C-alpha cells in the first residue's frame, strides 16, 4: 500500500520524466552494465577474502575477551580496546587512513595496493563487530556446560573448543550472516581509495555519459546478492526457532 502510494507520487512528480531519463536510461544501462558487472567480481573477491579473515580473527578476539581470571586482565583489556576503537571510527576513515597511509610507509615486503589495504581495513572494522557477535554467543552457553566438560577432565581450552564454541557459533549464525551482508555493501567503499571495482567503474561511466543509470546498474548487482543471503538468514532464524519450540514435544 505505502509503496504503491509512494511509487505513484514519484511517477507523477513534475521532475519524473527528467529523473527517468538520467537514472533509468536503457541504452546507457546496456552500454555500462557488462563492464560494471565484470568489476563487481572485484567486490566479490574483496568481501569473500575479508569474510574469511573476519570469521577467524573475530573469533580469536572474542575468545581472548572471554578468558577468565585476573591473570588475563591485560589481554581482555586489549581485546576490549580493539573492539571499542574499530567500532568507534567510521569505516570510511579507516579505509582512507590505511589506504593512503600504509602504502606511504613504503615498508619492505608489504603490498602497497589499495585493494590489499582496503580489504585489511574492512577486516579490522568488521572483526570488531563480529567479535561482539561471537562473544554474545559464547556468553549464551550455560556455565553448567563448562562445568560438565571440566568434570570429565577436559582442559579449559578443550572445553571451549568442543563444548562452548560449537554451541556458541551455531546460535550466532544469523547475526553473522547479517554482518556479512553489511560487509558486501561496504566493499563499495574501496572505490574511495582508487580500487576500480563496480562502484568506481559506475562513477566513471556516469561522468562519461552525463547519466546516472550506471549507479542503478551497480545497485542492482549488490541487491542481487544481498537479498538471497537475507532470505537464507531468515530461513535459518526460523529453523532455529522451530527447533526450540519442538523441544519437549519430541
Amino acid at each position: 500500500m505505502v509503496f504503491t502510494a509512494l511509487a505513484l507520487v514519484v511517477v507523477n512528480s513534475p521532475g519524473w520524466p527528467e529523473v527517468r531519463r538520467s537514472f533509468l536510461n536503457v541504452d546507457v544501462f546496456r552500454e555500462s552494465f557488462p563492464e560494471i558487472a565484470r568489476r563487481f567480481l572485484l567486490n566479490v573477491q574483496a568481501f569473500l577474502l575479508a569474510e574469511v579473515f573476519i570469521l577467524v580473527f573475530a573469533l580469536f578476539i572474542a575468545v581472548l575477551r572471554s578468558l577468565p581470571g585476573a591473570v588475563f586482565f591485560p589481554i581482555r583489556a586489549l581485546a576490549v580496546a580493539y573492539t571499542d576503537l574499530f567500532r568507534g571510527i567510521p569505516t570510511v576513515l579507516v579505509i582512507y587512513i590505511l589506504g593512503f597511509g600504509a602504502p606511504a610507509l613504503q615498508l619492505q615486503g608489504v603490498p602497497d595496493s589499495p585493494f590489499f589495504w582496503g580489504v585489511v581495513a574492512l577486516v579490522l572494522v568488521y572483526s570488531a563487530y563480529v567479535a561482539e557477535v561471537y562473544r554474545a554467543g559464547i556468553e549464551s552457553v550455560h556455565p553448567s556446560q563448562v562445568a560438565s566438560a571440566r568434570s570429565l577432565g577436559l582442559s579449559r581450552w578443550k572445553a571451549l573448543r568442543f563444548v562452548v564454541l560449537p554451541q556458541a557459533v551455531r546460535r550466532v549464525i544469523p547475526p553473522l550472516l547479517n554482518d556479512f551482508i553489511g560487509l558486501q555493501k561496504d566493499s563499495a567503499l574501496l572505490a574511495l581509495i582508487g580500487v576500480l571495482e563496480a562502484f568506481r567503474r559506475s562513477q566513471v561511466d556516469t561522468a562519461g555519459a552525463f547519466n546516472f543509470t550506471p549507479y542503478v546498474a551497480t545497485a542492482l548487482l549488490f541487491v542481487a546478492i544481498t537479498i538471497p543471503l537475507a532470505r537464507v538468514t531468515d530461513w535459518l532464524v526460523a529453523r532455529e526457532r522451530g527447533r526450540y519450540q519442538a523441544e519437549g514435544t519430541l
Partner: protein
Amino acid sequence: MTEDALRLDAVHKSFGRLEVLRGIDLTLARHEVVALIGASGSGKSTLLRCINVLERIDRGRILLDGHDVTARGVDVNEVRRRVGIVFQAFNLFPHMTVLRNICLGPVEAQGLPREEAEERARGLLERFGLLDKVLDYPDRLSGGQQQRVAIVRALAMRPDVMLLDEVTSALDPELVAEVLDVIRELAEGGMTMILATHEMGFARDIAQRVAFLDDGVILEEGPPDRIFTDPQHPRTRRFLQRIIAAGRL
C-alpha cells in the same frame, strides 16, 4: 595397608561471606556407598563439586587414594578423570549425539583411540539398555534416558569414585525408577559412591552409611537403619519428620 578411597578432613568453603561448608569430615572405604541427605541449601552440591575440584576449598584436605587433591600443583584434570560426577540437570552436550557425549572425555581427556572409546561406550550403553539411542541427540531422549546417558558418560571415564548430585530430582516421578536401577546396579558392582539424594527409601536401601548435612556440617552419620529409625540429633529428627510428612520415606 588399605587406604580409604576418599577422605575429607575439615573441609571449609565460603562464597564471599556465605560459609557453605564449615568443617566437613567424611571417609569412604573402597566399594562403600554413602548417602548424603539434608535440606536444600545445606551444602550437598557444593561438597560434591569440591571433591571434583570444580570448586576450590578454602581450608582442609581432600584425599583421593591417600593423595591430597587440593594441594598446589596437583593436576585437577587428572583428579577429575578419576572422580565422576553426575548433575541434577543432566548437562549433556546438546550438539553431540549420545555416542559423542560419552566418548568426549575418554578421547579428549584420557587420550583413548576413538574406536576403543566407542567400543567402551557401546558396551556401557548396552548394559544400561540404551544401545538404540547411540546416534540420537539428547533432546530426543526422555529425562530418564538423558540422566542414564549422563551416568554412562561419567562411567566411561572408568572413575574410582562416583558423585551423584540429586540425579533424580529433575525427573518426572515415573522416570525415577529407571535411573535408580542404574545406580543400584553400580552399587552392586562395587562402585564407591556418594549419593546426594532426597530419595530416602532408596538411600536406606543401597547406602551402607547415611550422613546428614545441616548448615555446612555433618551433624550425624551412621548406618541407614539407625539414622532413619533412631536419629540422635533433634535437627535430624525434624528433617526426617518433614520428609515423612512429604511422603518420601
